């Protein structure tokens, strides 16, 4: 067949973009690139064609550690009943002023 069968595919990089100053970088997709510089340029050429960004992060996909979906209950549900962490839990009389 063609050369492609023996060729090792370029690694995958996850792309995160800050859309404007003051906002967090947000995941928006991925690119294949041989190295970080090419990944950065590709991310720029692919994901910021309509002025979507002012800053880009690229991260090798295999460098990301993710939580497992089946751990969802044990990881996240314990937070659900800690309602005293939210400001609305507390009744403060109006007279006390803005708090």
């Amino acid at each position, binding site marked *: 067949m063609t050369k492609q069968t023996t060729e090792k595919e370029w690694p995958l990089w996850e792309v995160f973009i800050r859309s404007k100053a003051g906002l967090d970088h947000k995941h928006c997709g991925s690119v294949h*690139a041989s190295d970080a510089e*090419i990944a950065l*340029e590709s991310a720029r050429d*692919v994901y910021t064609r309509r002025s979507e960004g002012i800053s880009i992060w690229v991260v090798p996909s295999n460098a990301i550690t993710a939580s497992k979906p089946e751990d969802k209950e044990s990881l996240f549900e314990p937070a659900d009943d800690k309602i005293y962490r939210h400001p609305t839990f507390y009744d403060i009389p109006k007279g006390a002023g803005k708090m």
Partner: protein
Amino acid sequence: MTELNKVNALVQYAAQIGDNGLIIGHRMSEWCFRAPSIEMEMALMNCALDLIGQARELYTYAGEAGGEGKKEDDFAYLRDEQDFRNLLLAEVPNGDWGDTIVRLFFMSAYNKLFFTELAKSTDAELAAIGAKSLKEVTYHLRFSSEWLIRLGDGTEESHRRAQKSIDDLWAYTGELFTMTDAENLLLEDGISVDVTALKADWDELVSQILDQATLSVPTNNWAQSGSKSDGRHTEYFGYIITDMQYLQRRYPGCEW
């Protein structure tokens, strides 16, 4: 031939810088669906859009400066081959990825120096175009330099190919630093850029990247020229114009 004055020299000058953008942009657009990866295709098309965009602004300004009501498309579609004064480097065929990268690299290194100076032109419009274009070509230089380094310092095959591209295209780089009569005339008023003065910096920039790419600078400096000064093109050029102008020529005076 009409005698050169400051008006038609300015028209010629703006159009000629525009010609470089249009022709190299046109060449890059020929890569559509032919690049080594989609990511790289996107990159080339971004470059093409920048370069054709520059041409549009420059043609529009040339039309205004001429005072004859010419529009951007009059320059692109209704001039004959010999009226185009782009650099030969802009029009030679794309070749392989190496040839395309080397051409873009030589051209972008030149453009970066050139637009830096044009941004200081006493002509406010040219200065503004220069400043805007500078940002675009700075990215083109970065993109092409990074690729040249990877080709030069990649595999044996890529090194051999990249060196051949450099050797093949080298003869077209001499023309970058030649002055036309129009440029000399406009230089008196600080409108045009003295491109002869860019050569030393260009050599420095090029040898620095070639060095990083483990490639060597050719030693034969015999230069091809004739397009920028007299509209004497390569044989390839006629086909570009034939393609580009076909509809405008076949159906004259239509809106599209």
